[in-house]
C-alpha cells in the first residue's frame, strides 16, 4: 500500500510538471492555433535564468521567483514580437516550422550561454525532504502539485469569464473575423506567449528544483505535448490533468511492470483514451457542418 502511495505521489509530482508545460502548449494553441515546438526549450531557458539569478543575485525564494517570472514574460514577449508576429497570416505549417527553428536556437543557447554540465537550483527551500506518514517527499514536489491546481482554477476562470480570455478563443477560431471586430490579434498573441512562457517556466523551475538543470531538459516538451493532446489541445484545463495522468501512468507502469515500459505505458494510455475520445479528455469536437 505504501508502495502504491509512494508511486502515486511521485507520479503526481512529475505529472504536475508535465501538466504545467502542457498548459503552456494549450494556452498558445487556444489563442493562436499553433503548436509551439519550442515550448520545452523556453521552459529550459526560464529555469536556467532562475538558476543564474539564484547564483548571482540572490538565492532568496522570492527574488528568484519574481525574477524568473519576469524573465519568462520577457522571453515570451520577445519571441512573439521578433519571431512570431512577422509570421502573422502566413500558413500554419510555416509558422509551426518557425517554432522548430526557434527551438534549435534556444537549445544551442544553453551551451552557448551556460554549459553542458548539470546544475542544481538552490533557493534555500524545496529540496528538503518532508516525511508524510513515513513517505519521503521533497517540499518542492508538494509545492508543484499545489501550484498546478491553483493555476488550473485561475486559467479556467480566465478563459470562461474574462473578455480577453474569450477574445483569445475568438482569435484562435477565426483571426480575420476577430480583426474585423476590432480585436487586435497581435496583442492577444503577445499575451498568450507571455502567459504560456510563464506557466511553462514555472514548471521548468520546479523541475530544476527536484531534478536539476541539464541541457537535456528541453525533452520535457516531448513529454508535455502528448499530455496536451491527451487532455485536449484546446483545453488548457485538460492539459494540466493530462500531465498528471501521464505522470501517474508512467510511474505505475514503472513500479509494477518495469522501467523500460514507462514511456510505452504512457503512450498506450493516450492511444486508448483517444480511441474512446478522439478529441482528448476535455477537448471539444471540431464543429463541422456542411
Amino acid at each position, binding site marked *: 500500500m505504501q508502495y502504491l502511495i509512494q508511486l502515486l505521489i511521485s507520479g503526481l509530482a*512529475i505529472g504536475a510538471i508535465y501538466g504545467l508545460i502542457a498548459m503552456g502548449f494549450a494556452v498558445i494553441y487556444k489563442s493562436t492555433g499553433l503548436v509551439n515546438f519550442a515550448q520545452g526549450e523556453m521552459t529550459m531557458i526560464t529555469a536556467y535564468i532562475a538558476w543564474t539569478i539564484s547564483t548571482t543575485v540572490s538565492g532568496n525564494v522570492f527574488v528568484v521567483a519574481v525574477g524568473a517570472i519576469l524573465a519568462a514574460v520577457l522571453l515570451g514577449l520577445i519571441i512573439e514580437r521578433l519571431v512570431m508576429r512577422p509570421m502573422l497570416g502566413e500558413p500554419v505549417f510555416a509558422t509551426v516550422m518557425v517554432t522548430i527553428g526557434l527551438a534549435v536556437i534556444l537549445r544551442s543557447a544553453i551551451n552557448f550561454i551556460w554549459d*553542458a554540465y548539470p546544475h542544481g537550483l538552490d533557493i534555500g527551500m524545496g529540496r528538503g525532504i518532508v516525511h508524510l506518514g513515513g513517505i519521503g517527499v521533497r517540499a518542492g514536489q508538494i509545492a508543484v502539485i499545489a501550484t498546478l491546481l491553483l493555476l488550473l482554477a485561475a486559467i479556467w476562470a480566465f478563459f470562461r469569464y474574462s473578455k480577453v480570455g474569450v477574445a483569445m478563443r475568438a482569435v484562435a477560431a477565426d483571426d480575420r473575423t476577430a480583426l474585423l471586430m476590432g480585436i487586435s490579434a497581435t496583442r492577444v498573441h503577445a499575451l498568450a506567449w507571455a502567459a504560456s512562457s510563464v506557466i511553462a517556466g514555472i514548471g521548468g523551475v520546479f523541475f530544476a528544483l527536484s531534478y536539476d538543470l541539464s541541457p537535456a531538459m528541453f525533452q520535457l516538451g516531448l513529454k508535455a505535448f502528448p499530455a496536451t493532446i491527451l487532455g485536449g489541445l484546446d483545453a488548457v484545463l485538460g492539459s494540466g490533468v493530462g500531465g498528471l495522468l501521464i505522470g501517474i501512468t508512467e510511474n505505475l507502469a*514503472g513500479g509494477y511492470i518495469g522501467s523500460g515500459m514507462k514511456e510505452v505505458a504512457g503512450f498506450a494510455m493516450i492511444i486508448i483514451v483517444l480511441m474512446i475520445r478522439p478529441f482528448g479528455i476535455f477537448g471539444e469536437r471540431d464543429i463541422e457542418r456542411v
Partner: protein
Amino acid sequence: ADPGITDSEILIGDVEPLTGPPALLGVAASIGHKIAIAEANAAGGINGRKIKYVLEDDGYVTARTIQGVKKVIDVDKVFAMLGISGSGQSIAVMPVLEKSGIPTVIDVAPVKFLWEPPRKNVFVVGQSYEEGIIHLVNFLADKNPGKKWGLITQDDDYGITVRDGFDSVVKAKKLNVVYSGNYKKGQQDFSSDMLQLKDSGAEVFLAGGIIAENIAMTKELEKLNIKPVTGIFWPGRIEPVLKLMGPAGDRIYAVDYVEPFAGTAGKAFLEKAKPLVSEAEFKGINRYTMTGYAAARVLIAAIERCGKQPTWACTISELEKTKNVETGVMAPISFGPGVRFSNQKLQIMQADAATLSFKPVE
C-alpha cells in the same frame, strides 16, 4: 606524399559531439587533444612542423559523424585522426577509416568492436567498458560478500555492455541479484525505479546511468531514506556530479583508468593545462580531457619517430611500436603487432563529498 603534411604544418583531424548534451564529453576530449598539441607545438612541433588541429562537430548524430570524418579526410586532408565521438558513432565510421587507411587513435569510447578484429590503421587507447565494469563489480563483491545486488542500465549499446560485464561477474561469483532495471535513454524521473530497488532490499547498487541519471538516482534514494553501497561507471565520474549529489553522493565508488584530478598526477595535469587553454576551456576539463590528451600524446610521439618525412605507413608502424609511453594521466601505453588496444590498468576510486573529489582506494 601522404596528405596533411606541408613544410611547416601537419594536420590532425577529429570529430566530436560539440553541441547538445553530449558536448560534455566531446568538448572535454577535444580540449585534451588541444592540450597535447599545444604542448608539442610549444616544444617546436613535430620535427619543426606545427600541428594544426581540425575539429568537426557531429552533434552526436551518427550520419553527421560519417560526414565529418569524410570531410576532415577528403577536404581538410588531415594526416591522422584522433578521438571520434561516441561508441555507436565510432563503430559506424570504422569502414570509412579502414578504407582510407589513415592512422587513427580512438580515445573517447573504447568498445571491443573497435579492436576486435584488429584493423591495420586504427588504435584504441583505454580500457573496454566490460572490463571496467567487471573490475568494479568484482571489487564491490569482494568488499560486500553475501549482499543483495541491484543494477540499472540504459537501453542502448552502452547499457548492454555494462550489463554484460555485470552478468559475467554475477555468474562467476554467484551474486544474488534482486533488482535489475533498464531505463529509457533520456529518462529524467527515477522515482519508480528507485522505489523498486528499495522494495527489493538491494544493498549493493550499480548505477548504470551516465551523468544526470546517476544524480537523479542517488537523490531519489536519499528521499527514500536508503543508502546502498553504490558504484558508478567512468563516463559519469566527473566532479560536478558530486556537488549535485550532495551528501547522498558521499562514498560512492567509481572505476576508471585515468588518474583522479585530486591525486598528484591529476593536479600536475591541471597545472600543465592551465596556461595552454582558455579560461572557458579550462572549466570544461574532465576525465575525457585526460583520455584525449593521452591518445594525442601517443599519436604525436609516433609521428615524431618517423622523422623528417612522416608517412602513413611509417606512422602506423611506429604506433604499433608504442611501448610503455608515459603520459602522466594513465598507466603507460603500449600497442604491438596485431595489438591495437592499449588495455589500460584500472583503478577504483571513491567519492569524498567534503572535498567534492574522487580518491583512489586501492
